């Protein structure tokens, strides 16, 4: 008698609402000289507030300087700390070369609730530009700090701030058993507080936010083949999209979340399909013998940008959501793939090969001009901040894959470092 015990495979898969993970570290690697000088004075904390372990002013200063639009005054150079508007000596801030000044306080209301108050001043005019009092609790101070950053940024640049948004990304690392462990994580836009939403011993890829920002769709190989799942962030519950023989990949939600563009190869080779959430129907959008994949919706929901190998090498094409003829969008370079529209629809970013290097390119759809924004060898997966100011992407840092960000004009660059493991495929959330 012969016993043959065979362990075919062991899948460790967990879907969680939220589990804490190692934090990201951000390092600004390139800034701009023209950044606007601003001083953010440490916020005063009322005597009855108790212990506050969140440095609100430091978070605001960090947000503003990471945007590349602002140069924040070092804390060691902030010698006097006005608590109220009438304590502000504008001349002394002018002498420090500051254009703007932020002061604020955390206090306890008579009803026991905390509130954060801030004021933004124009140092030269000597007047207040904006100011708010935001009720909160100790747990949400970090979120309030990002909201203040958003308000300051919008007041001074005219563009909505994206500091209160989040990022999702894929990580992989070799675990103690020597096997690769894949995760999708979600963190604040500044990389703080990463939480794991799904873990698997088989590949996870292509995270995509719904336009509402309450769910993330992704591709998982946990069943031994690719399937698309859509997971609600608040509950951790998920549903599996009906899957077909072959590829089930590249999910992308329409601006109204009523449809998902995706890649299927059920009818032969990889083509773009549109899944209608209401009817449950799958409609074939592209029809080529080459590879068609990586769909992206135009902000108005009318066009789909996608990668196609129909011309011999991967290039980006655009097709009406209703079908018809696809037109080629990229002309420069022998390799352009995985395009994403800017939130204003006026430009796209993509992976653009320069020589032997895969870098992030930006194509102005009006002028047809392509500019190269990054300098890596293997840069990929560009994703726009919802205000269009920054592009997050993945790059190699030595042997490791990390996330990096570049301003849409290419002038400001920063690296996000996660302890251990590879970090890739970032997806920036929409506005809340």
């Amino acid at each position, binding site marked *: 008698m012969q016993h043959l015990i065979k362990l075919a495979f062991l899948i460790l898969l967990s879907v969680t609402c939220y589990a804490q993970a190692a934090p990201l570290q951000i390092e600004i690697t390139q800034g701009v000289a023209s950044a606007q000088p601003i001083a953010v004075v440490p916020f005063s904390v009322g005597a009855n507030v108790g212990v506050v372990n969140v440095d609100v002013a430091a978070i605001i200063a960090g947000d503003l300087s990471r945007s590349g639009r602002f140069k924040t005054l070092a804390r060691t150079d902030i010698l006097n700390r006005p608590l109220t508007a009438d304590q502000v000596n504008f001349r002394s801030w002018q002498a420090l070369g500051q254009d703007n000044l932020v002061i604020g306080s955390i206090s306890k209301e008579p009803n026991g609730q905390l509130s954060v108050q801030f004021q933004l001043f124009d140092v030269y005019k000597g007047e207040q530009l904006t100011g708010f009092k935001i009720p909160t609790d100790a747990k949400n101070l970090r979120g309030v700090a990002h909201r203040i950053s958003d308000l300051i940024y919008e007041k001074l640049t005219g563009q909505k701030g994206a500091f209160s948004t989040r990022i999702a990304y894929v990580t992989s690392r070799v675990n103690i058993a020597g096997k690769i462990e894949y995760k999708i994580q979600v963190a604040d836009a500044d990389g703080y507080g990463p939480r794991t939403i799904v873990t698997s011993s088989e*590949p996870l890829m292509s995270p995509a936010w719904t336009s509402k920002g309450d769910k993330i769709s992704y591709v998982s190989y946990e069943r031994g083949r690719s399937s698309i799942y859509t997971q609600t962030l608040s509950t951790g519950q998920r549903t599996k999209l009906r899957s077909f023989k072959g590829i089930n990949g590249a999910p992308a939600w329409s601006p109204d979340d009523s449809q998902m563009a995706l890649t299927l190869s059920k009818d032969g080779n990889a083509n773009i399909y549109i899944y209608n959430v209401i009817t449950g129907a799958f409609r074939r959008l592209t029809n080529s013998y080459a590879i068609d994949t990586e769909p992206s919706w135009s902000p108005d929901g009318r066009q789909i940008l996608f990668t196609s190998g129909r011309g011999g090498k991967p290039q980006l094409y655009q097709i009406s959501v209703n079908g018809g003829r696809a037109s080629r969008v990229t002309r420069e370079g022998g390799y352009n793939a995985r395009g994403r529209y800017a939130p204003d629809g006026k430009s796209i970013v993509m992976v653009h090969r320069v020589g032997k290097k895969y870098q992030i390119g930006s194509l102005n759809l009006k002028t047809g001009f392509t500019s190269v924004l990054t300098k890596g060898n293997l840069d990929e997966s560009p994703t726009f901040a919802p205000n269009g100011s920054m592009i997050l992407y993945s790059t190699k840092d030595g042997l490791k894959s990390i996330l990096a960000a570049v301003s849409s004009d290419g002038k400001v660059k920063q690296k996000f470092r996660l302890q251990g493991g590879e970090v890739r495929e970032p997806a920036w959330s929409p506005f809340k």
Partner: protein
Amino acid sequence: MKKLINIVSLMLLSAVMVGCSSFGGGDNGTASNGTAGTNGAANGATTTGIDGGATFSGHVLDDPSSPLSTKVIYFEFDSSAIAPEYEAVVAAHAAYLAANSTVSIVLEGHTDERGTREYNVALSENRAKSVLDLLSLQGVTGSQVDITAYGEEKPAALGHDEQSWQLNRRVELVYPAH
């Protein structure tokens, strides 16, 4: 009596139990397969040396002197064409599958890390399909063959140079029951 205990797919925390079909484990048929002797797993043929000297008494799929022992096919960059040196390998697998119609195979397609991820999934599927086409031409029925396209997600080598890349541009021929 022969007992085959097959423990498949243990999934933890909130995930549903799924059926096993295409997980082969590693490369090159490393799955353990019982002890030496005239044994072959469930569906296998058995080889015996007849001319003295070295004999191989394991499963024919593991016989190092047979092209069947080659279970990884490598590809050129951005190509899904099968190089001439692998034609004999594919032909051997085709003959084996054609002769053993109950045996099934999974073709796992892979790419190197260059290029975008979903495009690479499609490229890796094309590579596996090239192998499938060649198998089909040689009498293997479609129901015996399954394809999984992994793109660049499961590299065999973790480096970022040509040495690793060439090991990652591959189709693995996995016999799930072997």
